[in-house]
């Protein structure tokens, strides 16, 4: 039997077991596939949540802004720390230590400061996305061949030119990895923020369905959100592949 067949078998068996168990135990709580699928249909035909499009768009916008800010600050901050040895050795460890804190502890402060609207989600998505990008740029600069930098400097290149013409191409692959992780974390940050407290966005819909015990709708919303997340990661994955080919 081929591996693919076994994997498909596992999926079928899992779904079947879920169906049987869900029906026998508590269909409302365990939402068997036979209940989840129609709910997904109702969601996609805008029957259960007519304003799904607006919420989806809002979440996407929050992610885009958060990620854009994270890239700007992450690349900028990482470059400054990477180019200046003293600053890098002073702030690098502080950055790494802050990265070790479970980021969700910052969220209540952000919510207090930015309110329940989009700003607090953007701030949290930014915060989560910033660290992996900055640390990747820092690591990338450190692995650039010193001789290349010396030669470029000898020909009179400024810091900015050295960064753009020498370092960026050499560390492209590391950077792409950081950008991918950063995107995944920005997405999670926005959605976590929405689930923990918001009035609009996919997370708020999920929370709404959960609060009203509309479990089938909840599962359908989770599926849609998951597709959104997977799609964003797939795009980042393509970019990473390109960068890898380019670097090699």
């Amino acid at each position, binding site marked *: 039997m081929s*591996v693919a067949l076994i994997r498909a078998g596992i999926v079928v068996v899992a779904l079947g077991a879920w169906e049987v168990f869900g029906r026998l135990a508590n269909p409302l709580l365990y939402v068997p596939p036979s209940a989840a699928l129609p709910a997904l249909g109702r969601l996609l035909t805008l029957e259960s949540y007519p304003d799904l499009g607006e919420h989806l768009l809002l979440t996407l916008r929050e992610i885009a802004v958060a990620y854009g800010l994270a890239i700007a600050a992450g690349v900028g901050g990482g470059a400054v720390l990477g180019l200046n040895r003293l600053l890098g050795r002073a702030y690098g460890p502080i950055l790494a230590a*802050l990265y070790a*804190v*479970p980021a969700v502890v910052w969220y209540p402060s952000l919510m207090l400061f930015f309110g329940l609207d989009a700003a607090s989600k953007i701030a949290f998505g930014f915060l989560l996305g910033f660290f992996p990008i900055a640390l990747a740029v820092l690591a990338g600069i450190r692995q650039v061949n010193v001789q290349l930098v010396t030669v470029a400097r000898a020909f009179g290149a400024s810091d900015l030119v050295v960064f753009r013409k020498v370092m960026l191409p050499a560390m492209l692959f590391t950077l792409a990895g950081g950008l991918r992780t950063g995107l995944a974390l920005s997405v999670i940050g926005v959605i976590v923020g929405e689930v923990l407290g918001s009035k609009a966005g996919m997370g708020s819909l999920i929370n709404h369905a*959960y609060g009203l015990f509309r479990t089938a709708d909840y599962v359908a919303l989770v599926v849609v959100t998951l597709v959104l997340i997977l799609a964003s990661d797939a795009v980042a994955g393509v970019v990473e592949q390109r960068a890898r080919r380019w670097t090699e």
Partner: protein
Amino acid sequence: MDRITIRIRIVQIVSVAALLAAWEAIARAGWVDPLFVPAPSAVTGAMLRVGALAMAGLGDTLAKTAVAYVISVVLGVGGGLVLGSIRSVRQAVNPFVIALYGMPKILVLPWIVLLLGFGTLPAVVYGAIHGVFPILVLVSGAVRDVDHTWLTVARAFGARRRQLYWKVVLPAIVPTVLTGMRLGIVFCLLGVLIVEMFAGVRGMGHVLGSFANGFQAPELFAATALVSMASIVIVLSLDALNDRLSHWRGEAR
């Protein structure tokens, strides 16, 4: 300390002090609303006021995290050994493990709470869900990649299966297990805190959430600083342990 290290320390201390001073000055000058951004001095005062409450919450959170962590490590290392050693199981199950590892766990949070209610149990379960996958993925990879020459040699000298695991596989994967444990503890703490914020009745996440809802900014900042410091201390001590163990391995070889 050599000169460069001293300079680094000076830069670190000066910039933290400058940041705090600037923050204090801005807050005193009234450029920001003290309701939302309290001055460091107000935060210090709040730290003294709510210290006992916050410490109790932190203790509660860390206890849940410890239980979740033990579960994660046991399941992660055990499952990793199985997945890593049995090729057919690994090939069949691995994509699912990777998918579950990558899936944002926030999506199942409401369901976990619906299923397990409020309180300690959902926090422990959700923390363990966060912690187990990185350990599982790392350990199964390490077991798979154990140098086959070592296994062949051990077998040639008549080692039994049990001896193979105890004498060859387990020592070989120790560094990876430690890396996984370092990753896992932060994930466990994260999971526990999220549940406490979302549906907590106790613990640090609940404390943070209720300070935010009550617009008690100084208390909120104080509690945030406390839990951040606690997690930094935990991670740094795991790093230090890791360092010592790797020295020990280096000498033994």
